Every structure is written in structure tokens, then in C-alpha cells.
């Protein structure tokens, strides 16, 4: 309040217009009374005016605010556009969501790659590496032979040709084509391929040069003529050969002329193909084997010699052997220049029936040159070693070492030299092995006819007949092999006699024998045995060997019929007794009788009854009536003797009585029903009604709620036919099968035979199955998906763990920087 003490303030306030009216009054009042303050006031006034005046230019203009605002707006627009848009973008929910999702995916990927597991979203998929099979064409620029069988596909398509080719052909007579030459585009040697019939055609096909074609066609035509001549027969052969030579020469020149063209074509083709060696340097070993069936061995050999000499070859070896039937078989090995091989083979065709042919072409070029270079190296090595030897002075051990090495190298050299020599020899000459054998080589020299006769007789007096037979045999000068007279326990006599008689007298003897008694059986056997050979032959002799006669004589009484009967009855023992009684009443003899009881207490009976022919039918009827006839057959019906009545022939009847019978028919029936137990009970009821035998019955309930009932019955077939429909009515028939057993000797229309029926009743499958069905599938799917989620979560966690430290470091740095910046700005407080 003290104005004087705070005169500056009062002055400043006053000057700025900050005094209230009251305060101004006070102030001015004071000024009026204080000269000191009045002076200061004056100073202040001047100073203020000066300062204001001096600094007036720096006063902001009146529109200062507007300008500032305008400037602000401008500035905002420049920055703001960017910023606002950016802000909005950042703030956008969708963007948040999308970036969160992207971040998750990225994390999953990172985590996945960190843990090495596949995260399911594979952004990088390793391309499958295809491995195209390497197709390296190995071209042999030598002649390639092929034949019809293997076809020309190799050549046509220019496919790779293998180093070693083995082509074999089995041909039929006449139409054989040992080899057809084709040069394709790979002709190398300027040697003539004689255009054989088919070969020429093929050659034509494959020639790539027009010129060559023309010339070859001409040569081909000539070859046609030649062929025709050839087939006219041996006599013409010489002429044919000459013609052949002429035409082949022409063909040679033709191909020679054309072969440069061929060569060009070949070269052109080789451009696209690796050709490691120049054509002429190829080393090929050619071999062939032929097999002929000829008329005459020697003549054929001579022809071979002739042909091979024509082709500038020679016969290396021959050997032959003669067989027992006079036929000759042999082998001729010829050698000739490889280029002539085809011609030679062609010529050989006419030799005879070509049975087999094989051609091999072995390209040993690589091996040859390898060996050659190894050989050269070895030689150089030898030289070096020699040098070393000369240089070595004094040290004995060194000398020995060198010597040892030299010896080794020398050995190698010699071995390789040998190989090369051998190869040279093989290459220089093609080797053809010709096997010849004369026609019908396997024919037997002779046939032996062996006859055998079996005769059995009935005689009233066996001994007498037997004696007589022996006498007859001796009279016929037959050789008695065996003679026998047997008496068995029942006093029955059997006589046998085996003789060997000359063929001429055989028939007579046989008819004599037949007179001895009543003929039971007579059989003849004839065997033709080939001698020294096999197969058939028209020219072989047929010799008749001695005839064997086997004679058997039995007593008249032995004549009989023989039959067997099987009867099924439940009361076996009763039946057994009954038959015995019946037999006795009819005067029949019970030869054997047996009553068995098997392990299960089942009875079975066997009887053999001898009944006279007269009584037999009646007796049989009784026997059949005892039960159900299962089988009945007659084994023997001996003819009644000349004198005897048919009815007198006794019958031997074997009767089998049994309870059991094999099942004739099986049926399987599968029924679906909701009330399995009820159905099963009903079925049992039906079975009881029909008198069927219940073999087994069963009921069970499975884990999945399905019920199954089974019933096994046996009943006669005819009853089964009415029983089954009843069963079918128990539910829905799912399956029904019937099987019948084939029984020989069974009585026709065997309605009484047993049939077995197997019934299975099942309820529907449970809806909620254990292993399949909707719920299980759902469960599985959910669990799989959950697995996948867990996996992804794992990945995310791993990724975060990995990124975590980084982010932490970044955050720390940022925070740190912020702090520094914050510290730098001091807030101005007014």
C-alpha cells in the first residue's frame, strides 16, 4: 500500500492502465505531494515511450492472430492429411483384426520353422525333383543286325542300340530269314549289305538318301532273281551262286556309292548324338550259331566249305558222329571276314531246314582301346623303370624294388598283349558255328511189338483143365513162365498158367485155351517199343516179339454176381438180425457178418450173404425194405455158362447197415429280426414239429448291442424243403445258400437223405457303432483339429519366446530414448 516504497509497481500498473479508479486517485494524490516520485514518473514516461517507439516495428500486426491461424491451418493440412489418414487406419478395427491375424500366422510360421515342425501353412514347398531318366544314346555305328522277330522299331525311331545285342530267331521251314540287314542312318562300313528279300524291303524303307534308294532298288531286283534261282534246287546252286556273286557285287557297289550318302545321313544323325569314336575304329566281335536239319551230312558239309570259301573264309573245325540208327550229327565251325557274315548267312539258308539261329554282335571298342591305352602306359612305365634301373647306383634294395616292379609290369604287358591279340583275332573273323543233323535222326531203328493176353476161365474140373492147358502149351512149343495150382481154405482151387509163345503160334494156342472152359474174361494188350530211337518212323521195321499168355482157371462155382447194398436204419441191430433170419429162411449162406459199435455208441453192421440166383431178387427186396437204401451197385455179372441157367448163378451180396449217413445237402440261412430270441425259439419249435434233429443252438449279444442266434438242425431233404420256408418267415432273409453233395451210386431221387440247415438270426446293427459312424467321426475330427490348434499354439509360444528378448530390447531402448528426450525439455512456468 505504500506507494512510495513500491513506486515502480504503481508506476508500471498505472502506465499499463491497471489501476482502478480509486487507486488512480491515491496514486495521483501521492505524486502531487512527492517530487521524487514525480521525477521517477517523468522518467518512466519517457522511457516507456522510447522503448515502445523503438520496438514498435517488432510489434505484431493487427491481423497477427489471423495469420497465425492461417499458417496453422496450412501446416495442419500438410501434415494432417497424412497423419489423420494414418490415425484412422491405425484406429480401424478391421485393420487391428487383420494385423493381429497376420501377426499370429507369422508367429506360427516362425515357431514352426524354429521347432522344425511343419506348421500346416506351408508357404515354401520344396519343388519335387524330377529325375528324368538319363537317356544316353550309345551309338554303335557298326552294322546292326536285326530280324523279323525283334522288329525294326529300333531302327525306325533311332532308339539307342545296345552294346551287346543278341538276336535269336526260331523259324519255320522255308520261310526263314536268318537276318535282314538294315542300316538306318547309322551305316558305317562301306560294305555291301546284300539286299535279301525282306532285307531289301526294309532297307528301302530306311534309306534316307534318295540316290541310295535308286541304286539299291536295282540291286534288290537282281537279288529277287537270285532268290528265285536258289529255290529251284541244288543243281542250280552253282549258277545261283554265281549270279549271287554278280548281283552282290553290284549291290556292293550300289551301297558303296550310296554309303557316303548314308554316311552323311549317319553323320548328321550323329551330330545330335555323342559319338565317342570314329566309325572305322569300332571293334566288334561277331558270332553266329546255326542249326540245320539236313538230308545228308557230308553233302551239306561240302556245301558249307564251298560257301565259306566264296566269302573268303575258312573252315576252322569239323566233327561228326553217327548214331545207332545211321543218322549223322555234327558241327562245323567256320571263320570269315565279319563284313561277309550276312552274305554267308544268306547263302547258308538253302542248306537245309534252319532250326535255330543266333547272332551276337559284341562291341568291345571301349574295352579294346582301354586295354590298348593301358598297354601303352604299361610300356611307358617299363621304359621309365628301365631308366631308373640305369640310374640307380649302389643301393641294392632299390635295385630289387625296381626289378620287382618291372617284372610285374612286364607281366601286365604280356597279359594285355595277349588280350589284344585275342580280340584282334576275334574281331578279324566272325565265327559261325553250324550244327547239322540229318533228318529223322531220332527215328527208331526198329519197333518191337509185344502182345499180352489175359484169359480167365471157369471150369468144372480146374485141375484137369490146368493139365490140359500145360499140354497144349508144350505142344505149341511155348515157354512156360509160370504154373500154379492153389487150393484155399474153403477148398476152392485156382489155377494159373503163364506162357510165352511165338507170335505165329499164339492165336492157335489162345483158341485152344478158350476151349478148356467157360470164358470169363479175355483181354489183349499190345505194346510197341521203339529200339534205338524214339518217336515215329515210317521206315523202321516192326518186329513181333513173343506173346505172353496169362491163363487163370477157376471153378465154375466161382461164377457169381457181386453186389453191394448200403441201408440206413436207426435200428441197426434189429436189421442185422432180420437179415440173418431171412438169409437162413431162403437157404442163403451168411459168409461173413459183423456188428460194430463205434466210439460214440453208434452201431454199424456188415454182412456178406451168398444167395442163389433164384432167391436173390426176393432177398434183395427184403434187405432194401429194412431201412433207407443209401447205395446199391452191382460189381460183377458173370455170364452164365453155356449150359447153366442164368438164375443159377449165385449172388454175393455185401450189406452195410448204418445209422449215420453223410449229409447230402447243406443250407445256410441268414435272417434279420429285431426279436432274435423269439425267432430262435420259434425255429426250434418248427424243428421239433418236423422231427428234425437239433445239432446245436446258440444265442449271444455283442458289445455293440447286436444279437445273434444260431440253430443247427438235420432232417431229411424232403422235409427240409418245407422246413426252410417256415424259417424264412421268421424275419427278413439276408442270405440263403444251398449246397449239395455229389454222390456216386446214390439212389436217384434221394429224398430221404439227410440235409443240414444252419440258421442265423441277427438283429440290426447298433446305431452307435464303436468304430464308425457319425459320432465317432465327429470325435475324431474334433480331436484332430484340437491337435492342430495345440500345435499352432505351441508354435506361437515358441515364436514369442524367440522374439521376446528382441522386443524387450527394443522397448527398453525406446523408453530410454524417451526419457532422455523428456529430460531435455524443461517446462516453462509462468
Amino acid at each position, binding site marked *: 500500500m505504500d506507494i512510495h516504497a*513500491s513506486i*515502480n*509497481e*504503481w*508506476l*508500471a*500498473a498505472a*502506465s*499499463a*492502465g*491497471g489501476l482502478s479508479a480509486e487507486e488512480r486517485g491515491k496514486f495521483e494524490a501521492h505524486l502531487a505531494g512527492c517530487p521524487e516520485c514525480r521525477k*521517477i514518473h517523468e*522518467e*518512466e514516461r*519517457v*522511457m*516507456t515511450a*522510447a*522503448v*515502445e517507439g*523503438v*520496438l514498435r*516495428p*517488432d*510489434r*505484431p500486426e493487427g491481423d*497477427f*492472430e489471423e*495469420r*497465425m*491461424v492461417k*499458417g*496453422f*491451418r496450412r*501446416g*495442419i493440412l500438410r*501434415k*494432417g492429411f497424412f*497423419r489423420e489418414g494414418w490415425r484412422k487406419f491405425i484406429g480401424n478395427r478391421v485393420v487391428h483384426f487383420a494385423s493381429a491375424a497376420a501377426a499370429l500366422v507369422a508367429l506360427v510360421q516362425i515357431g514352426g520353422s524354429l521347432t522344425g515342425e511343419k506348421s500346416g501353412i506351408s508357404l515354401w514347398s520344396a519343388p519335387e525333383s524330377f529325375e528324368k531318366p538319363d537317356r544316353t544314346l550309345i551309338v554303335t555305328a557298326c552294322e546292326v543286325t536285326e530280324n523279323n522277330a525283334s522288329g525294326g522299331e529300333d531302327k525306325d525311331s533311332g532308339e539307342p542300340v545296345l552294346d551287346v545285342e543278341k538276336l535269336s530267331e526260331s523259324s519255320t521251314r522255308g520261310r526263314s530269314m536268318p537276318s535282314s540287314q538294315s542300316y538306318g542312318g547309322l551305316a558305317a562300313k562301306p560294305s555291301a549289305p546284300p539286299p535279301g528279300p525282306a532285307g531289301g524291303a526294309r532297307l528301302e524303307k530306311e534309306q534316307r538318301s534318295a540316290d541310295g534308294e535308286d541304286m539299291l532298288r536295282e540291286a534288290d531286283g537282281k537279288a529277287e532273281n537270285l532268290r528265285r534261282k536258289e529255290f529251284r534246287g541244288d543243281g542250280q546252286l552253282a549258277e545261283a551262286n554265281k549270279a549271287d556273286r554278280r548281283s552282290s557285287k553290284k549291290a556292293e557297289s550300289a551301297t558303296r556309292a550310296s554309303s557316303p550318302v548314308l554316311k552323311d545321313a549317319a553323320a548328321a544323325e550323329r551330330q545330335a548324338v555323342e559319338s565317342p569314336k570314329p566309325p572305322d575304329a569300332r571293334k566288334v566281335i561277331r558270332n553266329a550259331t546255326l542249326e540245320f536239319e539236313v538230308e545228308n551230312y557230308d553233302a551239306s558239309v561240302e556245301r558249307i566249305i564251298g560257301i565259306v570259301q566264296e566269302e573268303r573264309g575258312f573252315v576252322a573245325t569239323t566233327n561228326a558222329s553217327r548214331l545207332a540208327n545211321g543218322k549223322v550229327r555234327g558241327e562245323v565251325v567256320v571263320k570269315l571276314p565279319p563284313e561277309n557274315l550276312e552274305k554267308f548267312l544268306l547263302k547258308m539258308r538253302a542248306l537245309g531246314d534252319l532250326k535255330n539261329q543266333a547272332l551276337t554282335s559284341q562291341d568291345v571298342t571301349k574295352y579294346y582301346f582301354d586295354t590298348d591305352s593301358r598297354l601303352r602306359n604299361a610300356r611307358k612305365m617299363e621304359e621309365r623303370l628301365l631308366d631308373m634301373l640305369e640310374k640307380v647306383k649302389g643301393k641294392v634294395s632299390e635295385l630289387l624294388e625296381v626289378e620287382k616292379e618291372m617284372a610285374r609290369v612286364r607281366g601286365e604287358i604280356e597279359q594285355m598283349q595277349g588280350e589284344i591279340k585275342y580280340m584282334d583275332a576275334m574281331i578279324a573273323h566272325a565265327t559261325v558255328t553250324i550244327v547239322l543233323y540229318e533228318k529223322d535222326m531220332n527215328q527208331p531203328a526198329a519197333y518191337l511189338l509185344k502182345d499180352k493176353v489175359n484169359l480167365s476161365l471157369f471150369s468144372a474140373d480146374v485141375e484137369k483143365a490146368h493139365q490140359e492147358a500145360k499140354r497144349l502149351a508144350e505142344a505149341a512149343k511155348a515157354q512156360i513162365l509160370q504154373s500154379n495150382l492153389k487150393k484155399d481154405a474153403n477148398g476152392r482151387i485156382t489155377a494159373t498158367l503163364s506162357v510165352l509163345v511165338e507170335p505165329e503160334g499164339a492165336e492157335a494156342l489162345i483158341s485152344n485155351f478158350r476151349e478148356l472152359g467157360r470164358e470169363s474174361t479175355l483181354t489183349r494188350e499190345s505194346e510197341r517199343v521203339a529200339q534205338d530211337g524214339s518217336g515215329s518212323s515210317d521206315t523202321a521195321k516192326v518186329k513181333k516179339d513173343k506173346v505172353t499168355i496169362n491163363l487163370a482157371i477157376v471153378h465154375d462155382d466161382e461164377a457169381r454176381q457181386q453186389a453191394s447194398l448200403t441201408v440206413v436204419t436207426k435200428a441197426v441191430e434189429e436189421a442185422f438180425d432180420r437179415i440173418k433170419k431171412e438169409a437162413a429162411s431162403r437157404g442163403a449162406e451168411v459168409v461173413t457178418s459183423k456188428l460194430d459199435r463205434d466210439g460214440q455208441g453208434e452201431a454199424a453192421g456188415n454182412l456178406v450173404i451168398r444167395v442163389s440166383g433164384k432167391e436173390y431178387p426176393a432177398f434183395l427186396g427184403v434187405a432194401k425194405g429194412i431201412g433207407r437204401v443209401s447205395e446199391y451197385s452191382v460189381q460183377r455179372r458173370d455170364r452164365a455158362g453155356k449150359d447153366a441157367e442164368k438164375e443159377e448163378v449165385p449172388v454175393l451180396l455185401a450189406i452195410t447197415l448204418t445209422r449215420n449217413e453223410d449229409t447230402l445237402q447243406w443250407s445256410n440261412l441268414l435272417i434279420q429280426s429285431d426279436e432274435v430270441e423269439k425267432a430262435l425259439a420259434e425255429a426250434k419249435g418248427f424243428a421239433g414239429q418236423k422231427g428234425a434233429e437239433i445239432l446245436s443252438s446258440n444265442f449271444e449279444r455283442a458289445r455293440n448291442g447286436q444279437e445273434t442266434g444260431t440253430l443247427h438242425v438235420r432232417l431229411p431233404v424232403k422235409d427240409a424243403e418245407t422246413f426252410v420256408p417256415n424259417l424264412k418267415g421268421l424275419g427278413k432273409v439276408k442270405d440263403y445258400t444251398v449246397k449239395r453233395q455229389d454222390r456216386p451210386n446214390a439212389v436217384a431221387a434221394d429224398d430221404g437223405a439227410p440235409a443240414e440247415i444252419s440258421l442265423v438270426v441277427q438283429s440290426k446293427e447298433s446305431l452307435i457303432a464303436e468304430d464308425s459312424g457319425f459320432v465317432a467321426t465327429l470325435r475324431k475330427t474334433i480331436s484332430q483339429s484340437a491337435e492342430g490348434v495345440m500345435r499352432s499354439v505351441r508354435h506361437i509360444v515358441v515364436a514369442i519366446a524367440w522374439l521376446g528378448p528382441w522386443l524387450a530390447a527394443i522397448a527398453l531402448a525406446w523408453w530410454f530414448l524417451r526419457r532422455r528426450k523428456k529430460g531435455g*525439455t*524443461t*517446462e*516453462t*512456468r*509462468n
Partner: protein
Amino acid sequence: MDDTRRRDVEMALAGDPLAWEGLVRKYGRLVYAQAYAVVWSAPDAEDVVQEAFLKGYASRRSLRDPGNFVSWMLSIARNKALDAVRRRKPVVREADAPEGAALDDREGAGDAPARPLEVAELREKIFKALDGLPENHRAVVILRYIEGLDYQAIREMTGLSDGALRGILGRALGTLRIELMPYVMS
């Protein structure tokens, strides 16, 4: 800060450019004064004002308490003004610089042609005198003497109480009297 003002500031801080413009209008001169107190040049001071407000807008989120708006804004302005001074002459050793250089330093680019020596000298003296004032007072003084605002306007703008303002102005007057009277009277 009273409620209306607070509300204005809040709106502006929320990003409403219009509200911000209002603030520009209201506090522009004060910011100018603050800037001028550092750069001692009108054009430069205006540039600083612009920059300061834009910067303030850009980093408005960093101001947590709207009540501190003025002081926050002024500190921004001060920083910007210092940047401007540094931009003029990056390496300035005011201790070594002779008075002539200081003079050049102070005059901003684009000034009017050289004034009469008296006036220029006086300006210098005034600046020097004002520099001697406490930092907080300078803007107020500038508002009074350069911008020519009256007592009430200053009070509104600065939010200072009556007594505080009187005290500041009074002290400033006293200093100026001592410093400048010799020159003025001559």
C-alpha cells in the same frame, strides 16, 4: 485455468483443429512474446509461433494435464526459438563475439535496412536490459512494451494475479529505468 478455457483446451487436445485454432488466437501473442524473448526478431518470432503451434498440435497427446497447456506451449515455443537461434549461427560463442557480432546475431534475416544508429543502439541496449530480466518475466515485459497489450489483456493471457503482474512489471520497470535512463535521456 477456468473451466471454459479448460474445455477449449481439452477439445483441442482431442484433435479438433478448430478448437486448436481458437487456442492459437488466444495465446498467439504470448507465444510470440516468448519466442521474441529468445530470438529478438519479429519475423523469426512469427515463424517460431507457427512452428510451436504445429508442434504442439502434433504432440498434443503428450500433454496429460490440460491445465498446463500454457506453460507447455511456451516451453515448446522456447525450444523452437532456441532451434531457430542455433540455425542462424550453429557455433556461436557469445563470450568471444564482440558486440558488433552480437548485434548481427540478434538481427534476423529479412530485416529492414539498417536503422539510424541511435535507434539500433538503443534496441541493443533494450535487449540487453531485457535479457537481464528473469526468464519468466521477459515474455510479460514484451507483451507490455512491444506488443502494447494493456494490463487487463496481459492478465488474461498470462493468467497472472493482479499482485503478481504488478510485481513483475514493477521490477522490470525498475531495471529498465536503471539500465536505459542514461540512453534515453540523452
